[in-house]
Structures are given as C-alpha cells and as structure tokens.
C-alpha cells in the first residue's frame, strides 16, 4: 500500500469504519510512514475535538413542551379538528429567551385602533386602505424570531387564516400596520414595533374579538 492509497483510508480508519483486514493493511503502512502516521494522528485529534464539542447538548424542558403543544394546537385549528378561541394568549414582551411560548393577538390596519378614547372593538369596519383589512397578528414570544400568522375577518365576522404556518426566513405576506410596512415576516426582529404593539394591545377590548376561527 502506498501513501496515496493509505491517505484515502486514514479518516475511515480514525473513525473505526474499516474492516479488520483493511485496518491492518493501513496500519502496516502507517507504521513505516511518518507522514501518514502524522496525518492519522491529526484525524484522531480532530475527531476527539469534534465529538467533545458536540457532547454538550441542550435539554428541552417543560417550556418547550408547552410551546410545542400550542403550536400543534394551531395545526389542529387550521385543519378544523377543533375550534379554539383566538383570544387565549398573553404577550410576554420583548425578545424572550426560549421560555414559555405566548401569543398576542393584535389588530393591524385599523387606524382608529390604539387611540385612548377609542372604544371600538378590535374587529371594526373595513378599512379603506388598499391592504388586507382587519388582519390580526399572532406573535410567539418564545423566540427572538417572531412568527406572525395573519387572520382576516370575513363579512360574517368569522376569521379566516390567511397565512397558515410559521415563518422562519420564508418571505411571507407583507404585514401592514396602518400605512406603514411593519416588515417582512421573517427573521428580522421587530423590536421597535414591540412596545408600540403592546400599547395597542392594552387598549383593545379582547372580549370583542371573535372566539372562533375557520380554516381557509
């Protein structure tokens, strides 16, 4: 066996992949070849470092389970397996660490919402803006990356899910806040909008939000 042939097998030898007779043949060459011997040592050291670094893995705790359960519920709602109230979540604020997942529901595109004197319910008259009206944003606060899911109210006050699923880096429908574009529904943090959104939520009478959603 020459260096070129042995070189092709050194990594596999270090990983313990070779059959016994193959190992013996390569090792016989390595014993006589300082260069291949050094290379084999480098492969072994790199492998040890790699496995050591990857040994510490995070553990998913109860918060993970709760958040996942809520997301699975969303899937069920989209499929019409069970009907759940839209209003069920509280926003925990800010760029949250991987903690309990919470949702907030907010209205967008209703210029009259947010005014301290405004007593209109969250689902008000259709806006005249050229954007989707009465659209809701649901944010999952368990991650730095917001996951908006937009609903739109139909004429009969039911809600239709316009953009099912979560958006991680997937370009989604542009979400509009009044006449401003909030941002694309992707990884971008919407920190500047969070405080504003929270303030708006506090002014919304959540009891007025319809309790049922329908799958599209």
């Amino acid at each position, binding site marked *: 066996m020459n260096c070129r042939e042995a070189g092709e097998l050194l990594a596999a030898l270090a990983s313990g992949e070779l059959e016994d007779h193959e190992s013996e043949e390569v090792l016989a060459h390595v014993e006589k070849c300082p260069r291949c011997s050094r290379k084999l040592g*480098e492969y072994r050291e790199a492998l040890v470092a790699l496995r050591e670094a990857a040994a510490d893995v995070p553990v998913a705790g109860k918060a993970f389970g709760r958040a996942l359960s809520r997301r699975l519920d969303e899937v069920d709602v989209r499929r019409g397996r069970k009907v759940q109230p839209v209003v069920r979540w509280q926003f925990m604020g800010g760029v949250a660490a991987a903690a309990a997942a919470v949702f907030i529901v907010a209205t967008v595109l209703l210029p009259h919402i947010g005014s301290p004197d405004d007593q209109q319910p969250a689902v008000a008259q259709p806006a005249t803006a050229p954007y989707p009206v009465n659209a809701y944003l649901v944010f999952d606060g368990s991650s730095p990356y917001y996951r908006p899911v937009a609903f739109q109210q139909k004429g009969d006050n039911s809600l239709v899910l316009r953009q099912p699923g979560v958006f991680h880096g997937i370009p989604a429908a542009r979400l509009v806040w009044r006449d401003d574009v909030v941002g694309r529904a992707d990884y971008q943090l919407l920190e500047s909008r969070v405080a504003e959104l929270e303030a708006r939520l506090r002014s919304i009478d959540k009891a007025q939000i319809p309790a049922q959603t329908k799958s599209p």
Partner: protein
Amino acid sequence: MPETGSPSKRPPDDSRAAMVKAGRGDRASFDIIVRDYTNMVVALAYRVLGSRDEALDCAQDAFVRAWENAARYNPKWSVATWLRRITTNLALDRLRRRKTFTYLPEGLEERQVSPVEGPAEAAERKERAGVVWELLDLLPDKYRLVLVLREIEGLEIREISRITDTQAATVRWRLHRARALFRDRWHASVDGSDVR
C-alpha cells in the same frame, strides 16, 4: 401536552405503530412520539446548528412539520430516521439563511464543571469547543451535515443516505471531503496557522 424528558425505551415497532396512528389524527399518539424523540431531535439540531436557541426552535419546527405531515409517514422508515430527515432539512434551511456565524454554542455555559475537571480545564475545553464550532461553520453546509451525522450521531452511511435523500456514494464522498477539510483546519488552528 407532551412531556419532554428522557426518552422511553419504547421498541421501534411501537413507535412506528404510534406514528401510524398519529397519521390518522391521533394526537395522543403523536404526543408520545414527541416525548420519546425530543432529546434526539434537539441534540441533532444543536449539533448541526451550534446554537441552543436555534436548536430548540428548529426542534419545535421539526415536530410541527412532522405533525402536519403525519399522514404521509411511511412505516417502512423508522420514526427516528423520519424525524432526523425532517430535522436536518430544517436545520440546513436555517444554516443557509444565517446572516452571521455562531462561534460558541450557547449551551456550553450551562454545563457544570465535573468534579474531576477544574475551572482551567473547563475553560480550555470551552475554548476548544468554540474553535470546533467556528470550523464547522466554515464547512459547506452539506459537508457539515454528513460530518455531524456520521461522526457525532454515529449513523451508518445508508441511514445518512436516507435522511439526506442522497446516494450513498455521494454521502461517502462528501464525508471524505468533510473529514479532510475539518482535519486540515483543526490542525491549522492548533498549529496557529490559518488555513481556510
């Protein structure tokens, strides 16, 4: 609500049966799958992504994707293989969209120093791990993936081939290249030179 914790010692056939039931809409059966495979999915996502928060997010995405597609699960696949495939695809998507590199896995700070490992050793280990993740970030995504699946997850080539939907010969070639690249760069970093 699915509890997460140590995986149960459920025989593989039971998992397949549970997944088939989940495919018919049985949410309780899927909750069992979540309970049994969360640790595996989280660990795999973490080893591909190198970030605790991203790994947890990716793991959630993987289970949501699995639930959405439960009806398409084919019991000829083990549940582990099926979930690994979903997880690696999602993790690869995240790698591609990454705007910055993650050099340090966030989970390491939480590891307690073992009684036989002093603070100095722990710091050294953490530094080495940081270099490893940096080097992994420099690998092409597909090389990184096969390296993780083979060298860390310990999967056979055939299994990796199924998970990545790639021919075994391609997997072997990528693995060969990944090992060589990683070795070269690790050796260079240890040496103090800079090979990129």
